[in-house]
């Protein structure tokens, strides 16, 4: 279980205007500015949950993840992860968690992943039998066989990520912090990693906290979403709830039988590309609209969808940016 209460993390950032004179001045006198990376965030995550952290760049997602994994000391507030205070980095805590950062590698660069695994087995004191079982399982699920004895530097980005995940999970952690685990990967590889994470979550009842720029990752993996913007929590709940709250209207797409059919009474037209049309229709009007489309208009390829999460978030963050500008 993960608990964060009133979590605040401030960074002191050294500020100096450009130019030589100010560079010289900053040698002797430095001005600092306090940046609130995380500003009073609270949440509780139960064992076995899969939670997605969403937010624009610099919103405080990675900072929160680093506080939870024990790399950063919170400025104030309380954080516990599986009953440990993360920043103490006690052995018992480190054995329960793992942090995977898509941008940073823990594999030994010039050696095959097998060597990193052996090293991790030793430092995490994984019993030999359990190590063999876990490695066998990971090798099968991630298809590591052919990669095991290639130096890490020769692996492709996707192959490396699979090996990173295995290295991070050999000690069978029960809390996984995954920061952009699919960054730079192609769609097939993203799917493979996603499937794998879900399966690990289910077989080991592990808690998964994920940040990703790919909304698909988050939608596919995380029933619960925590949205952070400018250091504050602006939504915590399931995906449907977020979509309902922000934009309850459905997207109805179809291909017209006749290009000049009248659509004016059916809702607002979002896109129209030849005979392919997307409408925005409220839930209340949906049955009427659909029957009209299928009946008199006889449209083809009808699809009814929620608005894309990207749009919802753009709307959400845009709204907040406006609120901040107007001093109401």
């Amino acid at each position, binding site marked *: 279980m993960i608990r964060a209460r009133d979590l605040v993390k401030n960074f002191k950032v050294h500020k100096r205007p450009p130019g030589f004179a100010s560079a010289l001045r900053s040698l002797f006198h430095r001005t600092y500015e306090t940046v609130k990376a995380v500003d009073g965030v609270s949440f509780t995550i139960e064992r076995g949950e899969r939670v997605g952290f969403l937010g624009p760049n610099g919103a405080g997602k990675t900072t929160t993840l680093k506080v939870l994994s024990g790399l950063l*000391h919170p*400025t104030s507030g309380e954080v516990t992860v599986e009953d440990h205070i993360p*920043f103490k980095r006690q052995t018992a805590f480190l054995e329960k968690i793992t942090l995977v950062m898509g*941008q940073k590698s823990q594999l030994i660069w010039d050696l095959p992943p097998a060597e990193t695994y052996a090293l991790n087995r*030793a430092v995490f004191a994984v019993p030999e039998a359990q190590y063999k079982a876990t490695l066998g399982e990971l090798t099968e699920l991630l298809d590591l066989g052919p990669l095991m004895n290639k130096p890490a530097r020769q692996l492709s980005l996707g192959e490396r990520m699979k090996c990173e995940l295995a290295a991070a999970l050999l000690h069978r952690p029960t809390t996984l912090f995954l920061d952009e685990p699919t960054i730079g990967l192609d769609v097939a590889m993203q799917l493979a990693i996603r499937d794998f994470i879900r399966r690990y979550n289910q077989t080991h009842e592990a808690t998964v906290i994920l940040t990703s720029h790919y909304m698909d990752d988050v939608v596919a993996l995380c029933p619960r979403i925590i949205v952070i913007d400018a250091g504050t929590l602006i939504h915590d709940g399931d995906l449907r709830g977020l979509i309902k709250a922000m934009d309850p209207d459905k997207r109805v797409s179809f291909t017209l039988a006749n290009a000049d059919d009248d659509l004016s009474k059916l809702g607002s037209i979002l896109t129209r590309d030849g005979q392919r049309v997307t409408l925005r229709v409220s839930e209340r009007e949906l049955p009427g609209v659909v029957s009209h489309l299928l009946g008199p208009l006889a449209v083809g390829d009808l699809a009814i969808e929620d608005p894309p999460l990207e749009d919802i978030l753009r709307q959400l963050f845009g709204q907040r940016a406006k609120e901040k500008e107007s001093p109401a």
Partner: protein
Amino acid sequence: MSIGRAFRAMPTMLRVGVAETVAYRAEFLVWILTTTIPLVMLGLWNAVAAQGTFKGYSQADFTAYFLATLIVRNVAGSWVGWQVGEEIRMGTMSMRLLRPVHPFVALAASHAASIPFRCVVALPVAFILLISSGGSSLATEPLQLAMLAPALLMAWLITFAIMFAIGALAFFLTRAMGLFSLYFLLFMLLSGYLMPIDILPGPIRVVAEWLPFRYMVSFPVELMTKSMSTTAVLEQLALQVGWTIASIAIAMFVWRRGVRRFESVGG
């Protein structure tokens, strides 16, 4: 981070360290290049002593001194600071912090694993040393030779710890690398790497006697090449033990402060 854990993990850490030594060929090359400086110095000081002895050193003495220096540096050199600084700068140190073995211990194991390889390179040099000097410029006292192994081990530990501490300064400074240049300057001058400490000019020599640098190179070299009294050997050993403890303490201090800063400002 338990000590027992590190102890039990040691065989694997050493084994992987050996694999790393073999794989990091570029680093090996750098190391071979940097450790040829004693050979340059050998030629230089031999020229100086061409007309007889220089401050008590004959050509044979200089040859013995610098070949011994070459051996000591091969066995007891360490470049861990570059790695520490680089990992901090790149952010991969985070990964080390989340492992239940202290990075000092993990890196020490990884680097110590390369020592046997370096000994293999050092042995032929030792052989040449024995033949070329005819033994006349070498120490023969059993105590000195017996103390050589512990002295080399401590020389390595001091070098490793100080390098580690300088590397850890990257937690505070975005460009800690400049400090290495300063460090190497002091090291080369005061460790006996460029010239025996007893031919340094008076005041510099006094400074050199009081700093840890001489215990990284000069002391083990003296054990091999200079005839010392039992008291002198034991006294020097005691001082080396002191500097070993002090260096590790300094490394731990800088490290702890650095990590605390890292926890508060991020990497």
